[in-house]
């Protein structure tokens, strides 16, 4: 307590010293001028340059990132478009193939039916012709048999009657 009282009472803590003020002013001013020239100038320029360099590097990096993102987006778009195109082409191909198959099979069916019908026609014609030939043959045979009977034969009228009845018989049988 006493010590602090003495310090306060001494009063010289707050005493003005013009000499010290003068020297402080001069010293500080000179130091300020010299340091401004030799130190702060180069240091601050270097700091600002570095700051600008870092900023531009960051800007460049951002720009590059944006660009690469744009490219990526474009690539994705192209890829999806290509996928869609491929799908479309495959689908179209399938449809076409299906149609083609259906056409071909329908045509083949028709052709076969036509062929079957033609075959049936020709079979019918052949059968008819064969019957005609057979009929002629039978008639010839009957004439030859009759000739033989007549040559060896009996009464011409009676023979005639028999032949007529036989022809009648044949014609009724055929029909």
């Amino acid at each position: 307590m006493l010590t602090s009282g003495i310090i306060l009472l001494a009063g010289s803590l707050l005493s003005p010293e013009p000499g010290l003020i003068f020297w402080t002013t001069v010293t500080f001013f000179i130091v300020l001028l010299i340091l401004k020239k030799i130190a702060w100038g180069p240091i601050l320029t270097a700091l600002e340059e570095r700051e600008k360099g870092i900023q531009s590097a960051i800007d460049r990096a951002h720009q590059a990132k944006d660009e690469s993102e744009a490219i990526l987006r474009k690539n994705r778009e192209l890829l999806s478009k290509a996928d869609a195109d491929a799908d479309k082409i495959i689908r179209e191909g399938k449809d076409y193939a299906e149609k083609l198959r259906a056409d071909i099979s329908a045509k083949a069916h028709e052709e076969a039916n036509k062929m079957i019908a033609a075959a049936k026609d020709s079979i019918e014609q052949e059968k008819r012709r064969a019957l005609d030939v057979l009929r002629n043959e039978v008639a010839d045979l009957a004439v030859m048999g009759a000739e033989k009977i007549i040559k060896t034969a009996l009464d011409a009228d009676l023979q005639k009657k028999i032949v007529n009845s036989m022809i009648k018989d044949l014609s009724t049988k055929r029909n």
Partner: protein
Amino acid sequence: MKRLKVRQPKAMLKVIAILLPLLFNVSGLAAASTGQSSGISRESVTAPAVEGGQAAPAPLEEEKAGDVIMHHILNNNVYAFPPFGEVALPKIVVGGYDISVTKHVVMLWLVSATLLIVFSFVGGKYKKMTARQSPKGLANAMEALIEFVRLDVAKSNIGPGYEKHLPYLITVFMFILFCNLFGLIPYGSTATGNINVTLTLAVFTFFITQIAALKAHGVKGFLEHLTAGTHWALWIILVPIEIIGLFTKPFALTVRLFANMTAGHIIILSLIFISFILKSYVVAAAVSVPFAIFIYLLELFVAFLQAFIFTMLSALFIGLATAHAGHDEHEAEVAHH
């Protein structure tokens, strides 16, 4: 962290260097303290005599302590190196004005010389450096401080146009910082613990602030600012208040730095003198030395803190003076800080 670990033993060494000569001077007191303890045991018999005997030297001792403390703190025409002797400093009187070189002037010059050496070295490094290189060692350490003043002090408080004030702010920061730190070296004294030094520095800030305000607002704007933008009838009250307000800022700067630096040194010295006043080695070992070391380390921190606060407030005042915003906003900002 590594740097801190190195500094602590160094700080202890410095405190011991301060303590040692004092301990030697008072070696005779050991006998007195043993006499005191025996005196207490025989209290009942010779109480009045012993009390009388001890009361007499006690105030004398305390007075001596106060004198020693003041001697350490105040400016002096003699630079003393206690056990080795002293150097008388030249006395110069020019035109009736005493401008003699005193202890604090010597400290100012030492600080200036150190600043010039350190920063001519650092500045040379930066001149040689290209933008792609990074600084190393001392240049890097100083860059951290300069970058701190540049961005956190100047740029954030002054805003646009802060580059103009940077040289002053960095110089004042380094100047105060080195003055504070030099005061912590044994045989050094704190020039910033002298109110004349802090006053001069604050006046520098004051002039720079006013010039910046005049440049930013012009003479008309400057005078308008003094009226605080109120009705003319209130001017008779407000103009004096505003003018006082102009001067309280540098006054606060002056007293803050001076009182902080002086107080720290008084506390360290007082803690050491406790052991001499109580005449006890136990008190010295248990109280004085550990607490003095603690305060010493605190002072290391305060050295940086006060340099920062002075620079910070200077930047803030310049920023307030040049700001184009309204007066109310100024007040709010001041209150906020």
